[in-house]
């Protein structure tokens, strides 16, 4: 699937300690599910980060927020481009954004697979805010 690609290949994403918005790290959430999209950003902001949501992988990949994203919270199963495909595409572009995968499917094989592929974190829905926060912290420190 061809996605508009404004960035040069050799660009490597650095994760700033402070984000570009008011010095807070920007977390981007990509999920086709409305409940998740409606609930997560507020929680993220309450935890002290900036948040942005996208309803599809295509929207995220063609947005300008990619450069500013310090951490990506990514649904696995989505119609169109799936979560793992987003990870591959980012790798291909040379953008190393830590990814926390979230999924409603309780399948340990998938968790193992995604971790092997280099996921910074992995959560089954529903997850507690404490688990989310821990995963975010780990992901941001992994850069």
């Amino acid at each position, binding site marked *: 699937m061809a996605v508009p690609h404004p960035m040069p290949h050799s660009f490597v994403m650095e994760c700033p300690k402070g984000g570009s918005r008011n010095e807070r790290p920007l977390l981007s959430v990509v999920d*086709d*599910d*409305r*409940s*998740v999209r*409606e*609930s*997560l950003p*507020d*929680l993220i902001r*309450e*935890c002290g980060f900036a948040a942005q949501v996208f*309803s*599809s992988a295509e929207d995220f990949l063609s947005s300008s927020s990619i450069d500013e994203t310090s951490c990506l919270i990514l649904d*696995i*199963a*989505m*119609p*169109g481009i*799936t979560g*793992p*495909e987003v990870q591959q595409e980012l790798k291909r572009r040379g953008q190393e954004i830590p990814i926390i995968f*979230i*999924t*409603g*499917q*309780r*399948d340990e*094989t*998938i968790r193992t*697979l995604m971790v*092997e*592929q280099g996921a910074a974190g992995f959560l*089954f*829905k*529903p*997850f*507690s*805010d*404490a688990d*989310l926060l821990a995963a975010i912290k780990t992901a941001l420190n992994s850069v």
Partner: protein
Amino acid sequence: METSITAGPLLSLAVTVTSEQHVESVLRKIVEGLASLPGVALVRIWLLPSVHIPHAWQEGANSQDAIKHLRLVASAGNPIRSPGEDWSSLQGRFSRFPLNIGKVGQVAADRRPIFVKDFAPQDTWVVRPEWAEREEIRSFVGHPLVFQEKLLGVVGLFSRRTLDEQEFTWLGLFANHSAVAIANARAFEEVAERQKGEAEVRVLASGLEAKIRRLVEANVVGIVMFTLEGAITEANDAFLQMVQYSREDLATGRVVWMDLTPAEWRPRDEQAITELQTTGIFRPFEKEYFRKDGSRVPVLLGGALFEASGNAGVAFSVDLSEQKQAERALRRSEAFLAEGQRLGQIGSYSWRVATGEITWSEQLYRIYEFEIGVPLTLDLIRTRVHPEDLTLYEKMVEQARNGEKDFEWHYRLLMPDQSIKYLHAVAHVTRDQNGQLEYIAAVQDVTLRRLSEEARDKARSELAHGARVMSLGTLAASIAHEINQPLSGIVTNAGTCQRMLAAAPPNVDGALETARRTIRDANRASEVITRLRALFSRKETAAESMDLNEVTREVIALSLSGLQRNQMVVQAELAEHLPPVMGDRVQLQQVILNLLRNAADAMSTIDDRPRELLIRTERAEGNQVQLSVKDAGVGFAPEAADQIFEGFYTTKADGMGIGLSISRSIIETHHGRLWATQNRGAGSTFSFVIPCALERVADAETRVNRSGTSADAA
């Protein structure tokens, strides 16, 4: 005019003769000189053939005769009464004189001169008295020609005057001198001969030498002359350049075999020397030299001794630097290739069909987890192929043998530790150098990719647009997934709510909003339950326009692993640009699943042929779309063609399975038709047609219940 033979003329004649370096000239001058003295009628010289053979005699020379004869080699005279006679001729009766015959023979035999002062024709020894009388011959002197006690020959002189003792004496002295002159001339000639011979050889040699020298000077290879002790006596420029020594170094003896040879090559040199000594040659071998600066150059050497038991010889040496570089580059590119294969998890192989010869790259051995280098046969490879894919594998081999096309196959390996590898093989057909069929293939281990694809496909097809077909196990997973979305929202919102209320000051507005969202999510959750319940009911159908190919693909994706587990070879021929149909996705998928399951069941006992399952879609007459499922199974009796659609014909309870009767009623609800036919070969084909969406007439009996609040993407 002189009236006698005196010393004066003889002396000057002697001097003249001495300076001659050719025997023939000496002889001629002697006889002519003597013949010009007063009163001399005829002078002749005979020589032993070993001394000299005049050119005139050389053809007729007979070595047997020669020993016993004297040969006439020179003659001169003044005939007065024999016109027409040539007295310088060497032919005639007296051209040969056996020793001891006649006066001349006697002189030779006795080595003593004979002086016949006055002879009368009556003397018995006169062979031709009439000649003597006619020519008025009075005296005869015959003198041996002796040099260093060796008899050379005899000189004879016939005079018309009567010679006296004094003249006899002078003649004797002159004869001795002549012998010396003849001997000297002969010596000169011999030297000249030898020199000529040498010159000829030298010219000959220089011709050959010049030719070979061309090679040396062309400097295409290094050429040296060496001694067994290890000295290098000569070398061409090519050699000196190779080892970077100057001509001066060579001249001063600084170019020495030992210094040129690194220590580890000395044993090989020893071998070469031994070979030289035993066979006279040493055959080409590779070694290295040290250059003057200590760097090394790889070379090929060969050579020979000049003489079998000699000490010196010649050798060539060829600089192998370029070859070695090419070898290194080749090895490096081979290493790159091997590394590339390892990184990409790609192995490669070649298969010569006729001979069965199989060659694998190292990486392919690793993929199959065989020890590298193990001899390869199709049987060995089969031990790794997943049992469920063996039929597939055989088919691939069969096709490769008979067809002559490139092919691409996906198959699995079952490793000794029971893990599974997914392989993707791409092969290209070609001909080897003998024109024989050969496949060159690349095989990639795509296990990782395949697993994530399966996970994705699994997830996708389960979530696709709210429609799902599943077996009991997957149903539970998907229910959980569906519920987890709103539940996740509820939990997240609750967490947010707590934080907002705990803040200083509390964010009450924010907390209120989280509460509102919580309620919404709870509602969503209950809607999910309601909708899921609808799946079990036949009364409520959701009609929508859909692409039957897409619907079919989803079913295939879901059931593929199960089918393959039962060794089914699944093929799909889905028509392009299939027009959309109107219907209930879930129900149609259930029908298709049912047909696939039945086909699999029909083939579950088949062992003697591949369990081929073909799913096909196409346009049908009357603006319809047709789907067929063809199997190679046990089939059914023609009479039973309709009966199988009756209820309870076969009872195969399988969770969500609904049986052919239900399938038929679903299709009929869709204004279509479901039927079964026997194949020409083995097995049966089940087909249904349903109308295209455009022709769908709104039917009041069909209730449309759209599930409005779906958790899907906008």
